[in-house]
């Protein structure tokens, strides 16, 4: 692990990504206190002011300080991303592990169930779930989580099918190791790479999904700020108040980028064999 961290440290994009994530973490935890103004200080006399000393990111259509809202929204957006992907990861990986390991009927039943979810139009599923549970942070999160579950199940299952055939798994069975232990100790760590990639990609999409749900009026409830929602609300102001969409948009972009960079680097680094494709490959000349 220490070696993995050292290796991460030598990869500039990964370092940049990690730094951004650290900053995000701080902002997510302490956004409330970092914000120069209240997120809901409506002041219609101050509406749509461009960035200035008093409001570095300008004010929105209700005269609220955009910087403060962007800072406080970090928590919401991160929470939506992390929790929803966490749900998808937990459920999807469990399903994928069981389906891939036991095969046969278990596989069929579980994966057909996942197919049902997968065959659903993604947003519709979210819409339906939000409609059932009522809108809000928790349900938006659950909805996005459910939407991504089948993907994790598939990725995991594919990984399990590959790892299951590996000799070291057979070796573990030959020792008399229980299934649960094999899955936990041998299979799971060895399918980490595709899961990490999928996780970082899903984190990105989950954060964006929050925006899409907002588009459909199903996301985080106002006046709570969330980047996706702010970006969505800012869309009508592109021409006359660019800062409304720009700053939350930039925040999303940076976050997603950071997740991807770190995810990619982690995947490379967590492979103890260390041989990345680019090193193993030959040139074509």
């Amino acid at each position, binding site marked *: 692990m220490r070696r993995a961290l050292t290796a991460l440290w030598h990869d500039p994009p990964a370092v940049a990504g990690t730094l951004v994530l650290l900053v995000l973490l701080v902002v997510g935890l302490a956004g409330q206190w970092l914000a120069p103004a209240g997120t809901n200080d409506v002041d219609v006399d101050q509406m749509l002011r461009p960035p200035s000393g008093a409001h570095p990111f300008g004010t929105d259509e209700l005269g609220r300080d955009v910087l403060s809202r962007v800072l406080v929204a970090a928590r919401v957006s991160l929470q939506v991303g992390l929790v929803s992907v966490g749900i998808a990861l937990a459920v999807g990986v469990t399903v994928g592990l069981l389906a891939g390991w036991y095969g046969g009927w278990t596989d069929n039943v579980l994966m057909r169930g996942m197919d049902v979810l997968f065959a659903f139009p993604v947003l519709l599923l979210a819409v339906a779930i939000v409609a059932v549970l009522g809108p809000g942070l928790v349900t938006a999160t659950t909805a996005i989580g459910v939407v991504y579950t089948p993907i994790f199940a598939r990725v995991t299952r594919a990984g399990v099918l590959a790892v299951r055939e*590996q*000799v*070291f798994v*057979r*070796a*573990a*069975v*030959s*020792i*008399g*190791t*229980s299934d649960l*232990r094999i899955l936990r*100790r*041998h299979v799971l*760590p*060895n399918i980490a790479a595709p899961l990490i990639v999928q996780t970082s990609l899903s984190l990105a999409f989950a954060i964006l999904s929050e925006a899409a749900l907002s588009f459909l009026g199903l996301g985080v409830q106002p006046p709570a700020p969330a980047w996706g929602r702010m970006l969505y609300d800012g869309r009508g102001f592109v021409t006359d108040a660019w800062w409304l969409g720009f700053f939350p948009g930039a925040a999303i972009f940076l976050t997603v980028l950071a997740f991807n960079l770190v995810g990619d680097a982690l995947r490379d680094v967590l492979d*103890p*064999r*260390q041989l990345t494709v680019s090193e193993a490959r030959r040139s074509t000349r």
Partner: protein
Amino acid sequence: MSTGTVAELDDLTVWFPSPGGPPVRAVDGVSLTVRSGETLGLVGESGSGKSTTGLALLRLVAPTGGRIVVGGQDVTGWSRRRLRGLRRRVAMVFQDPQASLDPRRTAGASIAEPLVVHRLARSAEARRHRVAELLDLVGLRPETAGRHPHELSGGQRQRVGIARALAGEPDLIVLDEPIASLDLSVQAQIMNLLRRLQRDLGLTYLFIAHDLAAVEHLSDRIAVMYLGRIVETGTPAQLWREPAHPYTAALLSAVPVADPRVERERRRIILTGDLPSPTDPPSGCRFRTRCPQARPACAETDPPPIEVGPGHRAACLFAGEAVRAMRADPPAPVTDGPR
């Protein structure tokens, strides 16, 4: 329990279903007895069913027919749960030491796994101690426990694999080509180690290998497999001096010798063609399609193993005779086997 028998396969068949076609008859009527304290060598071409036979002993593949008896107990129908006990008594060492160790776990963790699984060492301290003991037993330094497989050399990895197999204090170890993927200089180390462990710990081995020289070196008895069947069994001396099955003879003659003078003189029995598909084995004698001495009768009768010497059996209608004919036959006699 018949004293002296560690494990017994009785008319074992293992067929793998192959979707949309006849099953793969990987093992097709194999009977073997592994005696306590001996090394039984199992040789044969790739795909002849050696590994499957070995795996069946641990019930790592489900037998299609026949019986598997380990330590006097018929384990053929044991449940998943019960089998975990069996797997303590029979251990396995795999061909590719790199592939058989979890790349993400340290050598120590791999060796300790049987201890955890079978609750052989309750405390972490006891486990560490036992791992150090095992490492010492296979000739590795204690600090090796903290390394990952990729930080070890091939020979070291295989030692870790052997230490893991020893951890459960098994009665029988199935060695599935344990030296095949190692360097020559390291192969010798591992063979020596295996031999010493057997001597010191009274182990029993089922030694699966391609390398006839190695088999001869380590085994007390040898079984030759061809297409899911045992075609010949005997001591190394019997087989080398007087192979009774044409396949054994061909196999022996194909082994090159590290001496240019010998090699230049030598005539080989070159078999033509490939191993037939195990989904559709030839009728009668399975070797007949490639046997230089095949006769019409071979297509009709499935030859039973016949005793050609004390403890030396061959499944050939023309056991002994065919080999003699082959060696005498043009193209040119094989002056000797690999000496």
